[in-house]
């Protein structure tokens, strides 16, 4: 599904040039659950952003579903993104002004789903995430665990092929964290490819494979059994 080759990304300030990704090559197959680990500053978030087409690589190639997307413009990327990729963030990133229902509905609006169909699909996914009873609440009225469920619901409502999760349990206690990991595992078992950045060895154990990064390079790959 994803094939990146010799991917490079630099951050320049006036005096220093930092290499975030250094000729990184990796591959993720459809249906896989991959965890990316590494110390702070090793480039894992940068990699996730490029995979999510939120950022461009400076060099190298990125083939997504057989299409070379490394140098797509903003509009094309947005288009590809909204139909194929769901995001889960550490800090949830729900819109405070919208209710649970409306937050989850948002991706459907951008992909032009009709209103009736939207209601059906949002209700379906809220039900699955067991937060239906909270549908008319605003994010601030929910606990962290509930907010992350909403965020995951929002990420999957469009039935994306790929979910990118950036430390999804980072702001949660262990019990809520485990719930979230169970949810992701369920989604993966239903066929969604998942790439997750995490600091937690515990969370990483839910994945099939762990890619460890250091200074923008793959240093080790662990296949989980």
């Amino acid at each position, binding site marked *: 599904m994803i094939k990146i080759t010799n991917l490079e990304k630099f951050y320049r300030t006036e005096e220093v040039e930092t290499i975030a990704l250094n000729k990184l090559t990796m591959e993720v197959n459809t249906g896989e659950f991959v965890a990316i680990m590494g110390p702070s500053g090793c480039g894992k978030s940068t990699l996730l952003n490029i995979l999510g087409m939120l950022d461009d690589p400076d060099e190298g190639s990125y083939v997504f579903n057989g299409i070379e997307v490394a140098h797509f413009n903003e509009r094309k990327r947005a288009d590809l*993104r909204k139909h194929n990729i769901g995001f889960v963030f550490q800090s949830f990133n729900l819109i405070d002004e919208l209710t649970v229902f409306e937050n989850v509905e948002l991706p459907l609006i951008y992909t032009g789903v009709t209103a009736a169909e939207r209601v059906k699909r949002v209700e379906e996914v809220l039900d699955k995430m067991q937060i239906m009873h909270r549908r008319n609440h605003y994010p601030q009225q929910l606990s962290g665990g509930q907010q992350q469920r909403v965020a995951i619901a929002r990420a999957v409502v469009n039935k994306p092929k790929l979910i990118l999760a950036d430390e999804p349990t980072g702001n949660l206690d262990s019990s809520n964290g485990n719930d979230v990991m169970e949810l992701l595992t369920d989604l993966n078992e239903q066929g969604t490819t998942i790439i997750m950045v995490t600091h937690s060895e515990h969370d990483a154990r839910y994945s099939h494979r762990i890619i460890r990064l250091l200074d923008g390079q793959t240093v080790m790959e662990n296949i989980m059994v």
Partner: protein
Amino acid sequence: MFKNYIKTAVRSLYKNKGFTAINILGLALGLATCLLIVFYVVDELSYDRYNTKANRIYRVNEDLKLGENNVQYAVAMPPLAKTLKVEYPYIEDATRIKNAGTTHVKKGNINIVENRVGFVDASIFNVFTLPMISGEPKTALLEPNTVVLTESTAKKYFNTTDAVGKTIVFNEKENFKVTGVIKDVPKQSHFNFDFFVSLESFPDSRSNEWLRSDYNTYVLLKDAKDHTKLEASFPAFLQKFSGSQMQSELGMSISQFEKSGSHFRLNLTALTDIHLKSNRSGELGPNSTTQYVYIFSAIALFILLIACVNFMNLSTARSSNRAREVGVRKVLGSSRKYLILQFLAESILVTFVATVIAMIAAAAVLPLFNQLSGKEIVLTVESLKWLVPSLLFIILVIGSLAGSYPAFFLSAFQPIDVLKGKLSAGFKGGDLRSFLVVFQFFVSILLIIGTLVIYNQLNYIQTKNLGYNRNQVLVVQNSSELKDQAKVFKQELAELPGVKSATMTGFLPTNGWRNTRIYFKDASFDQKKSLFPQSWEVDADYIPTMDMKMAAGRNFSKEMMTDSSAVILNEAAAKFLGFSDPINKTIYQSSGGDRKGSAPNVKECHIIGVVKNFHFNSLREKIEPVVMTLGQNSGALGIRVSTTNITALMGQIKDKWNSLSPGVQINYSFMDQDFDASYRTEQRIGTIFVIFTSLAIIIACLGLFGLAAYAAEQRTKEIGIRKVLGADVSVIVGMLSKDFIKLVCIAIVLASPIAWYGMNKWLQDFAYRITIQWWVIAVAGAGALVIAFVTISFQSVKAALANPVDSLKNE
């Protein structure tokens, strides 16, 4: 999708209630003020445009220059109108109006004082658009002793508009038949009469005198373009019709007259220019000037700009808080186009709400505004026709302008940066916002200085020594009603305790009576040595009653018989004549008349005194020369009182009046009030100016308040850290205020010279004026600083006092 945007917008606005309120109210306040000014300006510009033939109507004016004396009249000669109509085929019609002044109209047993009476030619209804409700416009005023009333006057006197055929009694004895009722004359007219009396009733209207001007004369051209042709033909026209009269009166031809440096000319003023551009002698009512239209338009524009700047500033400041929303939306697949549309829609929505509030507010305060401005503006369906489209246009323009910055700037963010919070520290949009704050305070300071200067000048006018004492003077305005009894009335009043002295003449400094006459320095009647002064008939009590001071010589005396040919000059006249010691010198007066020879009859006038200059015109104008003669004028009665019990004294005065003239009501006023009335326009303008300036400053402060709140919010964490490290509240307040204060200082430096220059130009209109003191600028600058500092302090003190733990925890 659009619904989703509106939903987010409304909720986001609701969540930030404070910002939203400041934003919407600030804009609404600005727009409402602007609307009021627009109403005012539109009203000023609409004068006389109710006439369907307005663009073809011109008034014929006369300019007269005699020696050094230069007078511009709004009136012209009695036979001019009919002669023009006969002479020029391209003149469709011509008509004359003469102000009748105060007239008494009988209703039942009492006489009502009416000031809006005009003598008019029958052709008036053909030239001006004065729709007749009943009666025949073509013939209504052809006969003598006919009168046409306005609708409300007909109702006032006859309780019906069906008044044709009824009789109106003027001044106790003159019976006039009502031959028509017209709709009330629109308020936006340079003449405003309730009674249109046929000029045919008066023999003077058929006078063939070409050397006097007392009729406001209008021509209706067949084609508006012909006005240049008409104006160009006036010299030849005058030569033809007034040449012979000039020869016999002054003993010279028009060309000789012109050669001697004098002139006698006719010219035209377009009807629609009269209200704003004409300020001649003999206008039918007080006119306005374009100056105020410009000043107010500029203020309206400034206020609108300030309000818009606020709106933009606050919107953009606040929009950085929404960067995260932008990021999330982008991640979820929103394209940039949609985000731009979202911000624009939101901004237009807010502008729309503000405009609706502004419209309601403006309509609500319109009566109050009318009272302050002396206008009678009403909102009609007709005015909505231009108002609604222009408001919609304004909503679109302001909404888009204010929304464009967040729309284009925020939507360009890389979502990943925004979500990581990388921008919240760096994103300040500082330069644009600083510029806008400077601009706002620049305008505010201009307005503050303007207001101070206007206020000082008005104060100067009110407190200036006028050369006479207007306090404690009661003026009986209609003493002429008493006819022969007037003298008795004056004598009886003078004997009342509480009355110091009384003088009988219409030529009081605050009254409208004015008269000019030609005097010559020597008997040869040399134009170059002519004086064209005010010539006033007064009595011997005039100078003491008015509390005027003699500069030289003596006052008139009742005992000296020779004083009947004596004159008293004011200093201006004495200076003009150039006598080193004018006392006992003689000046000469042409007594005019019927002689055929070269030298007209001469009357010698003996100068017995010089009175110190006193102001009788607006302080805009220089003091004119005045020559006083001893006469029997009974136009008004000035009474200097010396009692605090005015009520009791008034009772006695009224009793005396009623015993002498039971049928007529006494009409009186106080001289100081009459004086104030003559500066009412200036005072009104001053008041309006103060109000608008205050509003502008309030709006600017609202903006600053919002910005300061935003700045404090942005720096919450920094403030927390500084406090943990030991910073005092005062240090933090200083830190937060410094940036804004710097901007206000820049505004002061930029605005002061411009305001100084502009207000000096305004002052040039006054012959007697203040000079702008340095402290005016200092006060304006300090005022702006204090206002700005207080506004900012509200926010900065709050931020500085906050517990640092709270601000650091939420990171």
